């Protein structure tokens, strides 16, 4: 049962293509597992279709159709080689979301007691700050303030933050106005997260037993 969805304006930005590439991957991971958001996205895309249909046509160059016609039989460009993906030894039954196809996945590395980090590099947007995080059961995670939006999709396990409980399939959306203190559930938590801004280390500064 999914109880936390992206905000309406984030889902709108995703459907219209203006969400930053890192956030877009995390929202896509959520939408893939959430029938409610799939239906909402389809509705927004239908609105996009209606907007497109409603526009006054702008004529193309006279030779445009002939030029495209001449290219119809061109070979389709080769897809890029599959990216490097570390073996993260994920819990049984957990597959990485399809939204991460094409992304490079780094090894886990230890960044604090009970906390591991894997860099997710998007070859099409390498400047984006996307990561997988593994938090041990009962670990309390303190936020420090950050400049922009932060999205966290729970892939496995869960956490609570004093305001809500987040389980697998839920997405947490926080911005500079949010202050919360996530604590991993006893079985721990694996999340996919994106942070606004350039590449930097994760936002966790201090850890202590919950």
């Amino acid at each position, binding site marked *: 049962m999914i109880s936390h969805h992206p*905000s*309406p*304006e984030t889902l*709108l*930005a995703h*459907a*219209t*293509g*203006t969400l930053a*590439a890192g956030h*877009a*991957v995390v929202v*896509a991971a959520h939408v*893939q597992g959430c*029938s*409610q958001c*799939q*239906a909402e996205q*389809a*509705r927004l*895309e*239908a*609105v*996009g*279709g*209606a*907007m*497109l*249909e*409603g*526009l*006054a*046509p*702008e*004529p*193309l*160059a006279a030779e*445009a*159709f*002939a*030029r*495209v*016609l001449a*290219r*119809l039989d061109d070979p*389709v460009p080769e*897809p*890029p080689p599959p*990216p490097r993906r570390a073996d993260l030894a994920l819990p049984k039954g957990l597959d990485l979301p*399809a*939204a991460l*196809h*094409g992304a490079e996945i780094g090894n886990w590395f230890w960044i604090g007691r009970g906390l591991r980090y894997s860099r997710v590099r*998007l*070859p*099409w*947007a*390498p400047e984006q700050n996307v990561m997988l995080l593994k938090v041990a059961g009962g670990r309390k995670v303190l936020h420090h303030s950050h400049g922009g939006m932060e999205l966290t999709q729970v892939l496995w396990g869960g956490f609570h933050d004093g305001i809500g409980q987040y389980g697998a399939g839920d997405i947490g959306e926080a911005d500079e106005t949010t202050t919360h203190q996530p604590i991993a559930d006893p079985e721990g938590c694996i999340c996919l997260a994106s942070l606004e801004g350039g590449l930097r280390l994760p936002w966790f500064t201090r850890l202590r037993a919950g």
Partner: protein
Amino acid sequence: MPRVTTLGAPDPDAAALAAMLTQVSEARDRDAYAALFKHFAPKVKAYLRRGGMEAGEAEELTQEVMLTLWRKAGYFDPARGGAAAWVFTIVRNARIDAARRQRDVKLMGAPPEEADLAPSAETISLNAECQARLRGALNSLNPEQKQIVQLSFFSDTPHAAIASALNLPLGTVKSRIRLAMAKLRLMLEGLS
């Protein structure tokens, strides 16, 4: 050169467009493709121009979009939504790719196509009547809400564009978008 039988024909409705796209997908039908090109290409170009793209670049990208339409027609699923909605997603992705290439030509790869992903359990199908309702709903928004929805779809930087067009502080843009979308959703209830 295929015969263009549709020249001078009335503009195809949503059902006809979906049928033509299916023809392109299943039979690689170039006549159907020509009709789709005639219908969609000028709207795609208009869409890109509305987003502030310069005319020459919009022309080039429109041709790319129409080529993609030919190549990816097999991904079109009429049970999932209308032809216009599907073309919209191609334009959207092309615009994102173009912005990326502009920043760095060496960037590789692309996010997975929606259609490669697991099919949705709960999909909506929009027939011609529903599309008319959708247009009606968009037209019955108040001017401010209509502008918010339009800028959300057309602009590269919708939040800044909405703030400037409506003379709002950036901080209140989110809540205005939320209100406009709630109004739209209310009118679209039952579309799914």
